């Protein structure tokens, strides 16, 4: 059977596809790649659709052995990629043969790298998706939410090779966050329960990414924001929602967030900006910038059009 064997899973490697949707009646969250832009490009570089199963490798250290010919690409965080010790470029597809060893080094800029293979990894979906959600024990190779382990055999849908593709350097995302981030926020939910003064404080000040950051969400630290109401009935939490718990320190909720929660929310970060929270290290400074639903909608359509134009030019 065509497969890649995991020699070393690295720090944290997970199987992901575009995510698990429509399962909220069971309390299941969405999962999916923390940096959807990089994941989409990894799949696109090997001719896959955006929902093909790929690997999300956090921090680095992943080592795989090919047991078939295949075309693969690595995108996302700056990691060294080698095949049998020979350096290979990121954002570009490469061929491997049976016995070849693919190795990802540790990330120097950014935190999450994506490895896709032509045809995708052939993972049995659970509740409609292969996305691994460790907290729920759902998805992944064994449909139990487990991260990759040494010895895992990752089946490939097809051991085919494709002509090499490359994303031009000029449009590769920048993973140097040392100058800080700007996150567009769509006001919503309980934003009217935050006074004008509290809202100004929220927009005018900088917040810092704390080490309390994972696939569920990212805790920030900065000037505390207070809300006029602390007791809410639990309600649906959207991707990118900015929750303000009683300590006033915002938490931005990401892919593996709990489906329902009862803390006040000031709004939601635009999905196009959320990837930076999962790629930027603790200590990165950021600022929220207010946007509205119309601008957000335009930004989404523009980003989609750009992606498709670039794909067509490849």
């Amino acid at each position, binding site marked *: 059977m065509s497969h890649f064997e995991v020699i070393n899973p690295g720090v944290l490697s997970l199987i992901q596809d575009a995510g698990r949707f429509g399962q909220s009646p069971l309390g299941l969250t969405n999962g999916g790649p923390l940096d959807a832009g990089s994941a989409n490009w990894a799949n696109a570089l090997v001719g896959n659709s955006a929902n093909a199963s790929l690997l999300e490798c956090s921090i680095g250290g992943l080592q795989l052995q090919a047991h078939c010919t295949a075309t693969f690409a690595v995108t996302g965080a700056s990691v060294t990629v080698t095949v049998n010790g020979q350096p290979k470029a990121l954002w570009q597809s490469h061929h491997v043969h049976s016995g070849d060893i693919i190795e990802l080094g540790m990330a120097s800029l950014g935190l999450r790298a994506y490895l896709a293979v032509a045809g995708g990894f052939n993972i049995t979906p659970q509740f409609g998706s292969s996305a691994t959600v460790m907290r729920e024990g759902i998805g992944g190779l064994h449909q139990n939410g487990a991260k990759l382990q040494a010895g895992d055999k990752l089946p490939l849908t097809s051991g085919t090779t494709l002509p090499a593709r490359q994303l031009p350097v000029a449009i590769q995302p920048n993973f140097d966050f040392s100058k800080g981030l700007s996150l567009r926020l769509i006001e*919503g939910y309980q934003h009217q329960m935050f006074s004008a003064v509290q809202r100004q404080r929220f927009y005018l000040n900088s917040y810092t990414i704390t080490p309390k950051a994972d696939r569920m969400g990212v805790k920030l630290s900065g000037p505390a924001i207070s809300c006029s109401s602390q007791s809410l009935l639990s*309600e*649906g939490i959207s991707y990118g929602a900015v929750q303000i718990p009683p300590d006033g320190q915002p938490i931005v909720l990401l892919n593996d967030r709990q489906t*329902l929660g009862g803390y006040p929310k000031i709004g939601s970060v*635009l*999905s196009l900006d959320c990837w930076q929270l999962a790629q930027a290290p603790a200590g990165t400074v950021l600022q929220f910038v207010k946007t509205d*639903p119309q601008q957000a909608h335009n930004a*989404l*359509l523009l980003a989609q059009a750009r992606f498709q134009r670039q794909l067509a030019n490849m």
Partner: protein
Amino acid sequence: MNTSKPLYSLTVASENAVMVYFEQKMAADIAGLVQQAGPLIRHALGPHLLELLPSYASIMVVFNPFSTDHFAVKQWLQQALSALTAGSSKPGRRVELPVYYSEQSGPDLALIAKTKQLSVAEVIKLHQQQLYRVYAIGFAPGFAYLGEVAEKLTMPRLKTPRARVPRGAVAIADRQTAVYPAVSPGGWNLIGLCPTPMFQPQQHPAMPVAVGDEVQFVAISKAEFLALGGEL
């Protein structure tokens, strides 16, 4: 014309989500509106709907931003929700969940009894007396929020959550009760153990209850609990 208060309001949640808010209280009539609204919204949005998250007194409607926008979704919601009728609250199925109540299986029974100046037997009786409604499912897979617990049993969450609550733990917090579907940290007061699995990802259906169902807790003995597959 109807001049009473509107039954709901719409609020933006994110770039592709709208909140439908009903009167913010835990009550059967509000839960009835949430339940009525679900199918109306599904029908109105059709393929544009990505996700629907009902809760106690709200529904989050997540739509495909590449096929529609907030403006259209709000219009569809207003049209669809004009069919809502107040006051009607049709509960779903009635589901019996067995519970082995004891100080062994419910380490907080004694504390509740002492705090509420009741006997342990009275606490157990009061918990079973109520027919609970499944108000929401979420937080974790298979976690069903049930209400309302009798006023006399209202207990705040523990000051320090337990690092490990066993699978099947029956617990109360404020006016809510629930069965923990899996081992997890938790801050609710534990009063017993339920042998019925609350979430079985390999089974269909994966859960014994759905939002809108009614739950009746029934006391069982230790022997019955073990015979039903419970583990102590």
